[in-house]
């Protein structure tokens, strides 16, 4: 049973987050020792699995990585291809932040980064949707595109986190 089945949400990148949370709460309740009565090893394992499924699917990057793995794409460690434009922009943004760590710069960069994250997620949504109609080489190409988009998203998410922490 995969994480999507475990939390009873349709398999795909565009997960309904409200439904995901509701199903997570219901599933946690079902395997909570207070309700099950005994904290057997099995229940404990199931509870851990439910938690893992939720944290994975809740986060766009985690969800994308997980879905890509289910579809047979390559993992983050084996492919570090990133769009050169993304690297340049990250380089520039980090340089700007270094030189001028004040509120104004940070605010602009946060805005830019949030936009890029949104944009990457839209791309992921489209590419994962496209995937189900593809086979062979065309599928492999799209899987590679998804890999690259996920790598880009990771950069922007990291940058966003760093910008946020220093704000």
């Amino acid at each position, binding site marked *: 049973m995969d994480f999507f089945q475990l939390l009873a949400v349709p398999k795909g990148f565009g997960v309904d987050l409200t439904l995901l949370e509701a199903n997570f709460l219901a599933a946690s309740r079902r395997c909570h020792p207070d309700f099950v009565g005994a904290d057997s090893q099995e229940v404990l394992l199931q509870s851990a699995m439910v938690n893992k499924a939720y944290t994975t699917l809740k986060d766009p990057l985690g969800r994308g990585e997980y879905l890509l793995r289910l579809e047979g794409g390559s993992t*983050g*460690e084996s492919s*570090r291809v*990133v769009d*050169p434009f993304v*690297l*340049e922009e*990250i*380089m520039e943004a*980090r*340089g700007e932040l*270094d030189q001028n760590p004040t509120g104004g710069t940070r605010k602009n960069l946060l805005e830019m980064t949030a936009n890029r994250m949104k944009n990457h997620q839209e791309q992921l949504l489209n590419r994962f949707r496209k995937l189900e109609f593809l086979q062979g080489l065309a599928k492999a190409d799209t899987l590679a595109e998804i890999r690259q988009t*996920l*790598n*880009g998203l*990771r*950069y922007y998410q*990291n*940058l966003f986190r760093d910008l946020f922490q220093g704000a």
Partner: protein
Amino acid sequence: MAYSTKVLDHYNNPRNVGSFEKDDPLVGTGVVGAPECGDVMKLQIKVNPLTGLIEDAKFKTFGCGSAIASSSLATEWIKGKSIDQALEIRNTEIVEELALPPVKVHCSVLAEDAIKAAIHNYQEKQANQPAEASAN
């Protein structure tokens, strides 16, 4: 795990930090990254057209101490070398010189990739030069 004294030295006194004009035909620029840790590294070479040697190198790295040290060391090593010699530098040599622990080996890989990317960029620029400019 503590950083080695060599890493600390490069980290505290990085060599060759800065950048060259990206559009200069004698400059090669390589920007590489490791998505899993978020490091970005830019390494640039400036080639002397008469000798074919890398006469200067600069870098800018946003990442951990090992990534900074690896790229700093890389610029030191490639200065004065020919393109072919610079291409021979292996990440394992960087690991050895800086005594990088296994979890930081990817930083040295990044530095090797950056050298290659910069050289590749330079060679591409040379190949795309108008004929009369490259005839000498």
